[in-house]
């Protein structure tokens, strides 16, 4: 079963991280990701740019409306996501907890995936 782990955190807190702290977190996350990858449980991983880079298209009208910023104004913002493969919620929660230990603060939303198309990208694609 595939689960999306949606990462929510306060963006202004993340933006205030020092480079050392950021590097430390990324390194710790890397260790967990590498293990999951070896076990064949890790699918696509994405880290999103800050919400200031976001644009929202309201398509419920014609012509559609282009708005600046993220769709929802929330206290914690969607900053990235993982796709993981596990037997059930227990497994997904366990992965999320491991990731959370490497990167405390904020929340993970664990959401079962209904349809997954791997797409044509292979390897890491940067900005």
């Amino acid at each position, binding site marked *: 079963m595939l689960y999306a782990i949606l990462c929510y955190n306060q963006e*202004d*807190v993340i933006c205030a991280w020092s480079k050392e702290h950021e590097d430390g977190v990324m390194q710790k996350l890397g260790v967990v990701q590498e293990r999951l990858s070896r076990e064949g449980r890790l699918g696509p991983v994405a880290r999103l740019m800050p919400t*200031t*880079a976001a644009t929202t298209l309201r398509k419920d009208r014609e012509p559609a409306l*282009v*708005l*600046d*910023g993220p769709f929802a104004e929330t206290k914690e913002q969607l900053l990235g996501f993982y796709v993981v493969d596990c037997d059930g919620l227990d497994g997904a929660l366990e992965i999320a907890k491991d990731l959370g230990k490497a990167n405390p603060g904020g929340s993970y939303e664990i959401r079962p995936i209904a349809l997954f198309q791997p797409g044509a990208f292979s390897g890491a694609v940067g*900005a």
Partner: protein
Amino acid sequence: MTDLAWIEGAITAARPQAMAALLRYFREMDAAEEAFQDACLRALKTWPKNGPPRDPTAWLIMVGRNAAIDAVRKSSRNTVLPPEELLSDLEDAEAEAAERLDGSHYRDDVLRLLFICCHPDLPATQQIALALRIVSGLSVREIARAFLVSEAAMEQRITRAKAKIGAGEASFEAPGPIERAERFAAVAAMLYLVFNEGYSASGKAVEARGGLCDEAIRLARLLLRLFPAEPEMMGLTALLLIQHARSDARFDADGDAILLEDQDRSLWNRKMIGEGLALIDKAMLKRAPGPYQVQAAIAALHARAAKPEDTDWVEIDQLYAVLERMQPSPVVTLNRAVAVAKVRGPEAALEMIEPLGARLDGYFHFHGARGAFLLQAGRQADARQAFDRAISLANTAAEAANIRQYLDRVSADAKKTSS
């Protein structure tokens, strides 16, 4: 998980908004600072026990306000708010209380706080020092280190600057569109100053001041989050990101500056460049160009070129022409001449900068660029004169060293022609 690092991060992140809101309540800078300090102390006491609040900023504002109100015993005139120990996620009283904190005022509060630091009577360095102290919450010691002055001298400077602004002069009403636009322009200019204070550092000062670039970007992002549809704020943020992306490539092992053309582009930070490009894309949709957007677009053209020779100088020339119209200045024309030299040759560039001589005669970069154009045009003797003049005007040893490289080239060429 309410460890100290997290609390510290949350407080740093909350500081601009919390200070800004507290300033609106108290209308007095020292009172606002005191209230914020007080709230931070209580946070350090309460958060590890009760867990982190859902909205640290709202928590700090409320607790800071309460503490100050208690202190001056004005409680009869204000709504009684719950003591901070009761504010936890379980009760969710905080969400309700946060509602009462006029959330919609946040954005103008932050803008006002930054704007107060831009008081026109304050010299640029004091504006920067004040913003770093009040808005960013850097310690006087950190700021003194960045400006290479003693802590006592910086303390005095900040105290004097604070006395001058008096905090009372900026209107505390919500600003109208024209006033808001004016505040925006002043604040953007000040953020660019903060950035340049870090960016212009060289040698040992890089370590002490490099953080100012990050801080300017953080504040620019914060403003952009509060005013997500401002194209010039997108432009400024993009400009800062793209310039800062080059920081790992800008100096050699000896700490000497490396020219854009000679930088190892694999060291440029692609993540920052990507974010900068995304912001320019967004800004373009607004069709409301401004100087920061144009400068960001120029920086983007450099960032997009994998090799120096891939640089789209024709487009850069055109963008500088636009910038010249928006913001006429001899320095902009001088920058444009660099692009013109690439597109139409050194003679055209020399012709373009000739009229600037009177105004830029004391400007290091004018003579440096002029020397380079003359050298390209094969006028060695004139080039040597221009380079000598540049060296005499150099502000730093690194600038002089850079020009000496050109002079060595003139000498080498001269030897070649004579032998």
